[in-house]
């Protein structure tokens, strides 16, 4: 069931002298089973955009459609939409509050008003999805490692069985190992569990490696939207926005300026390797 933004505009202090437009005429469609990354410089409207997906913010104008139905329409069950779209904020471990991990994960489904057996079943499944078994149930969420805390927090959102999982810089502050494990896990939620993933990130290397599609936001408008290969072809544009391209792409671009005929639109290590080897054959 696709989630569509249609000409979404959003402004702080709308209608006053202090009006500040944050989103301008944004139209996008997100699909299940697709890993979409949103990139953009600080202040480009990324976090405002993702808060719209979960109805934490309501557009000043425009439509938000879930499965073709206008969410902003009178009588639409907004609470139900929040169950369909799960939002994980930056440093989500700071929102844990129950003394035991399992109870914390149950918080979401309990709020959905499900019967207890179902609450428990959904929480259990969510914990399994993030790779935490029963032995974690009664541990305190304040006494486990940073990476584990973050898994618990993500399980807390997954327990509501959303079709879409929206994450803001989920790997920030983790060590390389923890970061890789978490991103692999998120990729798995997309490929195996079929969730639609919408991920805000600052790391070009990460999005090049993990995403199916990249949306570039700048000053509240969508500047680029396409596969990583398509997007990272626009190096000059990205650099102008204060963004960059993956490191390996940078190497190809460097070779190009030195007069070598290479394809500068490659982003993976394997394909870049092949392209460079071509020069030597």
């Amino acid at each position, binding site marked *: 069931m696709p989630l569509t933004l249609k000409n979404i505009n959003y402004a702080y202090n709308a209608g006053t002298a202090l009006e500040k437009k944050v989103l301008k005429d944004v139209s996008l469609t997100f699909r299940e089973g697709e890993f979409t990354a949103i990139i953009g410089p600080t202040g480009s409207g990324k976090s405002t955009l993702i*808060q719209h997906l*979960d109805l*934490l913010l309501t557009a000043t104008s425009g439509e938000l459609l879930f499965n073709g139905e206008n969410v902003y329409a009178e009588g639409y069950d907004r*609470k139900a939409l*929040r*169950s369909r779209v*799960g*939002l*994980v*904020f930056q440093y*989500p471990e*700071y*929102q*844990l*509050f129950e003394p035991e991990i399992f109870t914390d994960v149950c*918080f*979401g489904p*309990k*709020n*959905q008003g499900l019967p207890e057996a179902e609450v428990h079943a959904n929480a259990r499944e969510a914990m399994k999805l993030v790779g935490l078994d029963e032995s974690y149930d009664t541990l305190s969420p*304040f006494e486990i490692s940073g990476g584990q805390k973050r898994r618990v927090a993500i399980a*807390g*959102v997954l327990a*509501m069985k959303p079709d879409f999982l929206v994450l803001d810089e989920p790997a920030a502050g983790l060590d390389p190992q923890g970061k890789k494990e978490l991103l692999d896990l998120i990729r798995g939620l997309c490929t195996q569990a079929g969730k639609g993933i919408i991920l805000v990130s600052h790391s070009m290397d990460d999005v090049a490696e993990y995403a199916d599609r990249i949306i570039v936001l700048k000053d509240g408008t969508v500047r680029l939207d396409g596969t990583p290969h398509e997007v990272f072809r626009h190096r000059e544009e990205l650099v102008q926005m204060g963004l960059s391209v993956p490191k390996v792409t940078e190497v190809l671009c460097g070779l190009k300026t030195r007069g070598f005929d290479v394809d500068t639109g490659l982003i993976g290590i394997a394909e870049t390797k092949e392209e460079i080897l071509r020069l030597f054959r």
Partner: protein
Amino acid sequence: MLRDITLGQYYPVGSPIHRLDPRVKLMGTLVYIVAIFLADGVWGYALAVLFLAVVIALSKVPVGHILKGLKAIFIIVLFTVVFNLFLTPGEELFHIWKLSVTKEGVQRAVFMTVRLVCLVMGASLMTFTTTPTALTDGIEKGLGFLKVLKVPVHEVAMMMSIALRFIPILMEETDKIMKAQSARGADFDTGGLVKKAKAMVPLLVPLFVSAFRRATDLAQAMEARCYHGGKGRTKLHPLKYTGRDLLAYLVIAAYLAGMILLKIFL
């Protein structure tokens, strides 16, 4: 909504009021607050409003910016107005259902509103025109005599300054946690008192955890920078009275005298 609370935020423009010694501003605010309770007639309130208006004009802080700080007390003002309007006995003007509105009630409601608004605007003007550090310097130095009585003046001043710095940060954090828990289906708005109180747990626990974490971090950062209490500390901007401050003291004294005279003779 939470970001609208502007109380305690310094407004960086250069103005005669900004340049005053914080001790003068502290004293001035104190006198202003006391004096407004002396007002009991149109003239008293008029003088108080006039005085505030002149100071605001001198301070170059936009009126709109100061008015934003009033949103925080809107409910209190509303309560005051309603209570005074309906519960003051006297000459009845008209009545709604069983409640009568009296002439005295209207008058008191107006006066109380003016008083509250002046109080808040006056106090917030001080924080708009004085950096919290200057303010705490003012408290530390202005109230330094209390040290003789074993009052930890420096520590209190430091605590205040830190609180002022972290209030906006914690406000924003509250907003963020509320949103995050709402995303997990938490409902902060509906239900009875008990349900609402219970709904605060998912907000308060993370907020406290975070506040304690910040406190530990900050204590460590302060220690790392050689903080060891007020003893032997010097100041980048030590307080020194100038002619301007003396003049301000005179104006404040004149204002107080004026309020007293109005109370006695009108």
